[in-house]
């Protein structure tokens, strides 16, 4: 790396004018057809840490004169691959040499607010989908500016120049210049209004498996996760929390631990007391010794056994049920179709047979491998945070509100996250760390949760019960009514989009799949007003509703004497893309190949996040022993940024979903979570993981999401397979509750198939 100081001071002033004045971003916002795509893209940064000799093209892109092309990924790396994949989208249009690209972690800033969601967040498997066009536009515009700078310097027409590997070339004169040498001049140019983007066949980085920029740090221990932030004079905080979910501590005696080694301060924070010491272990020991009093929590008195009864009893409460309109997910923005309960009831009355099926799923914890952690430093004028967060915009607002500082005085740096899965969407731990740091102003404080606190103070996927009534005619489904009962996530979050008189979509959406062609669908919901903290869990709604919806279809198929795959396929004639995914998985899994007794296959489908996933699980059941032989998955997410990363997400999502289906279960006793760590809330282990075969479908459709897409279909495919193998219907998760025990899977065939995969 060359010495940036060799650049003249005058150059730096020029650069600052070009960068900080926001020329690039302002001009981009004037861009014709996609003007709105850039609204709000101007940084609200007040500080400037940019080194001399760097041309800052936007908050997303800096080209340093020593050749580094620094591209900030707008969303948080949770393991889903955005750290490499989002910069790559920009880099491809820029014609950057991938070896020159240095991805940079983001910070909370207006510049990174998505023009599509209006938020700066990492959620909904949306990162690629919502930043794809914006990143391409910035890369394409910067490329044209570099070309124009070179052409002007050489006195040749820009149209005669071309770019490759971070260089501009002019074939006629044989001249060539690096982006590094052109960057400062280019950053001062007006931004092209309509930069020419590549045609997909011109992509050199998108769609291929190339070097991932995060891997080296992760195999050497150098990656800085939230827990690894180290700052001068840093202190460490451990929490004492109440036993009850959502509870509070009403009083504590700081003197009881004042003399313990290393203790610096003791202070009340949201939902607990923070003990601040010179290392975490001392802080934790003191927190455990602290004398405290708990106030009764709203969850007090809740026990899992009676909660389950309440969930099922609520299904009979016709008066409390609120409808969920059918939403056409293929036409985003179209109004919900009006519900007609009477037609559905007529279909039930006229049916040859009505199936009534009661199902249930439990509360689930997220269990990221990195427990909740946030580092904060508060002074009278500033607040700085280092945090693995999925919601940096709200986190920054929370820090401003707690400290009373203006938003621009709060700097929130996003670190690599040791898993997210929706847990790091919440800002509870971030708030606590700001409150703790405010007690020792000037010194950074790293607040870390224990695993026990993580398990017992999560924002859980709610437990739900459902009753599905299926009207069957001679050979088809003539109507379906599905009712769900449980806590509303949106109610708990006081979500502004919750509509009175309409079911919370995080409970009810896709409880009956809209894609299946059968008439008289009716969804409603009974909300249970418990105050157990609930939140977003990888794949959210679909995490429960795929299980309910796809097992119901399976039960209908059996009652109709139809093959479960064939019935689904026949109901998908209006959705050829989805049907193709289903056909692909059936073919790849050998759906029609005969099986010995005791062995069976189950199939399930899910669609969401702009993607389609179908899975077949093949199992053997021998009394209480369940062996999973293979999970086959077909997946279509449209254009893939990196097939290998998509493959990784499919594998990971399946394992995450399987883990929950087998053993995921959070139980309450008098409002307190019974489970506390991995010994009593076990997750899927290495040796238990079955063979997973994945078929990625080639597609030019707009890129969809991959991070959550393979989670939902595992549980229903597995439950349906158990029925096929044994005749035993699984209507309750986790499977452990049905007395089934996982036997070591037989290793028969393994494989992944993907274009461009590494060895």
């Amino acid at each position: 790396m060359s010495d940036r100081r060799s650049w003249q001071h005058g150059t730096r002033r020029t650069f600052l004018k070009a960068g900080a004045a926001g020329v690039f971003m302002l001009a981009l916002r004037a861009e014709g057809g996609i003007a709105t795509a850039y609204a709000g893209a101007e940084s609200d940064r007040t500080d400037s840490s940019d080194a001399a000799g760097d041309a800052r093209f936007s908050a997303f892109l800096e080209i340093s004169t020593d050749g580094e092309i620094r591209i900030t990924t707008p969303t948080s790396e949770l393991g889903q691959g955005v750290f490499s994949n989002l910069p790559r989208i920009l880099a491809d249009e820029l014609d950057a040499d991938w070896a020159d690209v240095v991805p940079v972690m983001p910070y909370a800033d207006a510049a990174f607010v998505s023009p599509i969601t209006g938020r700066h967040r990492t959620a909904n498997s949306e990162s690629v989908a919502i930043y794809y066009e914006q990143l391409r536009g910035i890369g394409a515009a910067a490329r044209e500016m570099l070309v124009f700078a070179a052409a002007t310097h050489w006195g040749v027409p820009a149209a005669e120049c071309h770019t490759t590997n971070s260089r501009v070339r002019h074939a006629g004169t044989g001249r060539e210049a690096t982006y590094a040498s052109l960057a400062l001049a280019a950053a001062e140019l007006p931004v092209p209004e309509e930069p020419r983007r590549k045609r997909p066949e011109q992509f050199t980085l998108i769609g291929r498996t190339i070097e991932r920029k995060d891997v080296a740090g992760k195999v050497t221990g150098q990656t800085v996760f939230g827990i690894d932030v180290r700052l001068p004079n840093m202190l460490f905080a451990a929490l004492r929390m109440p036993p009850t979910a959502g509870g509070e501590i009403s009083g504590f005696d700081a003197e009881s631990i004042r003399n313990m080694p290393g203790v610096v301060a003791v202070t009340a924070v949201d939902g607990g007391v923070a003990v601040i010491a010179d290392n975490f272990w001392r802080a934790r020991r003191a927190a455990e010794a602290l004398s405290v009093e708990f106030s009764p929590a709203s969850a007090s008195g809740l026990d899992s056994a009676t909660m389950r009864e309440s969930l099922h009893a609520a299904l009979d409460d016709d008066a409390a049920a609120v409808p969920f309109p059918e939403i056409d997910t293929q036409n985003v923005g179209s109004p919900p179709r009006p519900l007609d309960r009477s037609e559905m009831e007529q279909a039930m009355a006229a049916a040859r047979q009505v199936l009534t099926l009661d199902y249930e799923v439990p509360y689930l914890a997220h269990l990221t491998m990195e427990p909740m952690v946030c580092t904060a430093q508060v002074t009278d004028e500033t607040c700085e945070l280092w945090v693995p967060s999925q919601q940096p915009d709200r986190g920054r607002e929370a820090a401003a509100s707690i400290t009373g500082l203006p938003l621009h005085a709060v700097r929130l740096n996003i670190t690599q996250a040791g898993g997210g899965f929706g847990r790091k969407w919440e800002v509870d731990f971030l708030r606590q760390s700001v409150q703790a740091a405010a007690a020792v102003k000037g010194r950074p404080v790293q607040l870390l949760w224990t695993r026990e606190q993580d398990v017992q103070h999560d924002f859980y996927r709610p437990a739900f019960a459902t009753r599905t009534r299926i009207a069957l005619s001679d050979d088809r489904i003539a109507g379906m009514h599905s009712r769900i009962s449980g806590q509303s996530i949106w109610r708990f979050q006081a979500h502004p989009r919750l509509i009175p008189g309409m079911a919370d979509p995080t409970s009810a959406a896709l409880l009956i799949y809209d894609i299946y062609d059968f008439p008289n669908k009716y969804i409603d919901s009974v909300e249970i007003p418990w105050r157990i903290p609930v939140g977003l869990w990888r794949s959210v709604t679909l995490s429960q509703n795929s299980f309910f919806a796809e097992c119901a279809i399976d039960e209908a198929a059996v009652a109709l004497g139809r093959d479960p795959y064939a019935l689904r396929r026949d109901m998908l004639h209006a959705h050829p893309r989805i049907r193709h995914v289903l056909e692909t998985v059936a073919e790849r899994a050998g759906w029609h190949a005969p099986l010995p007794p005791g062995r069976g296959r189950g199939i399930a489908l899910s669609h969401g996040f702009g993607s389609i996933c179908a899975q077949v699980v093949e199992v053997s059941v021998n009394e209480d022993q369940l062996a999973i032989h293979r999970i086959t998955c077909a997946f279509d997410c449209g254009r893939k940024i990196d097939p290998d990363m998509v493959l990784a997400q499919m594998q990971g999502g399946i394992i995450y979903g399987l883990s929950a289906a087998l053993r995921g279960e959070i139980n309450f006793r008098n409002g307190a979570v019974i489970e506390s760590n991995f010994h009593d809330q076990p997750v899927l282990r290495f040796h238990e993981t079955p063979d997973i075969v994945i078929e990625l479908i080639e597609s030019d459709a707009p890129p969809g999401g991959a991070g959550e897409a393979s989670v939902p279909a595992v549980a229903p495919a597995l439950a349906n397979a158990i029925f096929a193998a044994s005749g035993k219907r699984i209507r309750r998760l986790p499977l452990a509750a049905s007395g089934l025990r996982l036997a070591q899977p037989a290793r028969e065939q393994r494989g992944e198939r993907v274009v461009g995969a590494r060895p």
Partner: protein
Amino acid sequence: MTRCQVNGEAVEFEVEAEMPLLWALRDQLGLTGTKFGCGIAQCGVCTIHLNGQPVRACVTPVAAAEGQRITTIEGLGGEHPVQAAWSALNVPQCGYCQSGQIMAAVALLERVPAPSDADIDLAMQGYLCRCGTYPRIRAAIKYAAELKAKERTE
């Protein structure tokens, strides 16, 4: 005061003898590659080598390291065949558990140069990953075994 060797260097821990090595490594030495996951030896993300044997640093008191040889992920050097295999196969997702996974795999290959699936199952069952990198870890261990074998013949 506990004296030991960490990644080839002599170290004196000036902490309570009962403090788990995990915190002494992370908070005193700044070796943050070794992670905290559960605190009760259930997940394996804190795995280090004590005289070449994989141990859980979250339940190993500093006193147990007196006069011993400790290796952490930072001590592997970055070009160890296991690390090379992990990179070639893009094993990590979030990456948080991978230090422990790698330390476990290194120890396995020291003991069993060409492990079978059953050997790998046995050696790796105590190491949790929530991203679901298990299939790639299996492939990477086999690939690392090949790389090590190649190293030996060259």
